[in-house]
């Protein structure tokens, strides 16, 4: 059952990705990339990462699509036909993909409970999160309590990005014109 859900979601993800690669209309591409994020969020739920799923749905499916549409309002909607051939990138992708697949062969099997990643500090956090922080959601406990400073750093990243976007767009656009969504 679990595997069936997994495979169906992957089939849709791959179809969406191929459609994104083939389409030339950028509006359709923006919409499909939102759909891709939503499907990815579904996959994250199937893989037990509920916190990641709702962040991906909100940020990847929502905010990112809004940004994309805001930027597309100022641009031509159609992509031009590429002049250079697509063979070299295709070969490069196949070689890289083969190397990555070769790399995964040494990895422990999917879902294996005695993989090194499950035996190291993960169980420690699961055992100690509730008595030490009082938060039953271990992801929240790690994110906001154990790694609180890192999360502060993450907010700094958003802050810097927001300032940079405003500087890149705001000063050059001058008065009168407003940029939606960015």
């Amino acid at each position, binding site marked *: 059952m679990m595997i069936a859900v997994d495979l169906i979601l*992957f089939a849709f993800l*791959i179809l969406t*990705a*191929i459609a*994104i690669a083939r389409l030339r209309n950028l509006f359709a591409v*923006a919409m499909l*990339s939102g759909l*891709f*994020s939503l499907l*990815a969020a579904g*996959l*994250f739920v199937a*893989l*037990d990462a*509920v*916190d*990641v799923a709702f*962040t*991906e749905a909100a940020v990847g499916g929502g905010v*990112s699509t809004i940004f*994309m549409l805001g*930027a597309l309002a*100022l*641009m*031509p909607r159609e*992509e*031009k036909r590429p002049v*250079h051939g697509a063979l070299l*990138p*295709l070969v*490069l992708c*196949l070689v890289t*993909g083969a190397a990555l*697949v070769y790399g*995964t*062969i040494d*990895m422990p*099997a*999917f*879902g*294996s*409970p005695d993989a090194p*990643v499950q035996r190291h500090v*993960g169980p420690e956090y*699961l055992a100690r999160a509730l008595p030490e922080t009082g938060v039953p*959601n271990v*992801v929240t406990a*790690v994110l906001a309590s154990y790694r609180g400073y890192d*999360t502060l750093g*993450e907010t700094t*990243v*958003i802050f810097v*990005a*927001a300032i*940079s*976007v405003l500087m*890149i*767009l705001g000063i050059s656009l001058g008065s009168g014109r407003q*940029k939606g969504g*960015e």
Partner: protein
Amino acid sequence: MDAAFALIAGHANYWLVVILMMIGLYVAIARGNLVKKIVGLNLFQTSVFMLYISMGKVEGGTAPILTGLPATVYSNPLPHVLILTAIVVGISTTALALALVVRIREAYGTIEEDEILEIERDVGSKS
């Protein structure tokens, strides 16, 4: 034969993620349109998230929210934390990249890579 089947069953998830990753890489390098390149990078990025989350999954496990029942198996929460941070950093870079593309469009009048390079070459040969 059994070993081959176990390898495929245990790693198919990773391989599907690699396929998605490579489609993203292809979109990013084969297409000349700058917005399309950003979308390709986003595809690649989301696939990397899937790879990390796949590694944290434990067979028969549940989301790492403590239930209080002693026999519950939980998936590893640490990849989830890592990816939550990565998603937020990802949206920051996407916003920045789109802002740069908007500026490039204002300065050059186009968002196609080869046309921008041509304009650059013309300007270079004149001066």
